[in-house]
């Protein structure tokens, strides 16, 4: 049971590390967006 629990906890953090990568993609994709977006009347 100990092994299962430890593998389970490590697996969650591996998934969380993948989530960091996903969020990094979201941030990275924005770099091509102009600071002045279409429709901005300001």
């Amino acid at each position, binding site marked *: 049971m100990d092994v299962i629990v430890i593998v389970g906890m490590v697996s969650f953090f591996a998934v969380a590390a993948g989530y960091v990568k996903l969020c990094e993609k979201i941030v990275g994709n924005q770099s091509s967006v102009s600071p002045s977006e279409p429709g901005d*009347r300001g």
Partner: protein
Amino acid sequence: MASQWVVLGAVIATILIVAPPLGRYMAVLFGSGPAFGDRLFSPLERFIYRVTGVDPEHEQRWTAYAFSLLAFSLISALGLYAVLRLQGVLPFNPTGAPGVDPLLAMNVAVSFTTNTNWQNYGGEATLSHFSQAVGLVTQNFVSAAAGLAVMAALIRGVARRRSITVGNFWVDLTRMTIRLLLPLSLIFALVMVTQGVVQNLSGFQEVVTLDGATQFIPGGPVASQVAIKQLGTNGGGFFNTNSSHPLENPTGVANLLQTLALVLIPFAAPFTYGEMVGRRRQGWAIFWAMLILLLLATVVAMGAEGSGNQALFGLGIDQAASESAPGGNMEGKEVRHGPGASALWASLTTATSNGSVNAMHDSFTPAGAIVTLANMLLGEVSPGGVGVGLVGMLVFVILTVFIAGLMVGRTPELLGKKVQSAEVKLATLYILTMPALVLGITGVAVLLPDALAARSNPGAWGLAEILYGVASPANNNGSAFAGLSSNTPFFNVSQAMAMLAGRFFLIIPILAIAGSLVAKEPVAATEGSFPTDSPLFVGLLLGVVLILAGLTFFPVLSLGPVAEALR
């Protein structure tokens, strides 16, 4: 009961006096300049950095910051799991507590690593002094400091311009632990000892009472745990009954100070924000939004519990205050605290993601119980946990400026930084995660006979017990309704998943928002800019928080405590 409204006023007054300077002190700690106590703390910090190989001058991008947090949390969880499993052979075990069952140990390890402190274990009856004083208390300090570190990273993201780094996680963690949490906890623990909170290494002492019966009086390092459990919005009590136990919360003064300790650092956080971004009015605006939400909830809870149980009035039972009874709804409450102080604590502990209790929430009136649930289901932003409460509110700020921008056709801005698709997507991930966890796991639980068997009540109140048993871990609150026997395989595992996802799947988008914002150059404010420090903005922010939570959770609340109230 009237005196309890005075106590509420005293709590608010203390917050207004203490929180601003404390928040500004925290802002100094997050900077690189000289700070109070440098002569004492700097050598200790340098020693820690040298031993751990940390370069305090090296700053991290948000991804490195996030990976550092994840690595530290994984090692913390595994270390605490090992302590709990091996406590039977470790020292300071006067009660002879055996090693904790694997699934329960996992639940506890995850609970304290994520700053939740949900207690499926039986306090002093399950854990050794070593497990509590070394295992749990260490996590109480560092998990709280980690939350503050995340806050610092996000604020730097807002405050800095055209940068790529958001700070150094290891430095933030160290400085918050050593310069803020440890000194405050040391002072608070000593004050608690003066009030009679136990602080020793004894086990159970067998005594003979005046009428000849035998009683076992528990001992242990309680005061040192109480201090950080309150200040760090942790909540895990030394005793199974937490702060309703007379050796953990013995006097009215102790109760008042512990109540105050729940809210001081969370309410200081907005002032840290205002100071670090160089605009104190921004901090005040967020502070007022948090305080208004808290006051609305607290007044309802105190009023409901002070009014008594409506069902008992129908039976002709007197619930009025008298010389021998505090009056109101006293089921599940300590007579010495009464309904007012119990309801005040219940509202503050659920609003701060603390989770310590001085009464049993399952015995509250439906209106009082709705308050405790609502405080958590708002997303722990009123004011929320240390550090993570402020960042939760800042996510709502981003959504609010986005919605306001949509209304007037402008690209939304936060302190001059344009809020674009990435920030809104990340904020959406943040907002959706907690409801998905709460509603998803609750939905599964009501389909499983084993999970339903854990309830103490059938029907609507039983649903409220399950909802609370999921909402509390998923929001990293940790308070118990005290009506759900959740030390079962299903709840141990599902709650652990909720605590992990409710912590890290929210923190990661926050750090990503910090990484996105930190690279931006603020644009100058124009007449068309929407000020984020005005009463109008505070009102709009409150509307967004309440409407989002209301639309998400009103159906399940209707089937649970609301149905119970209308019965």
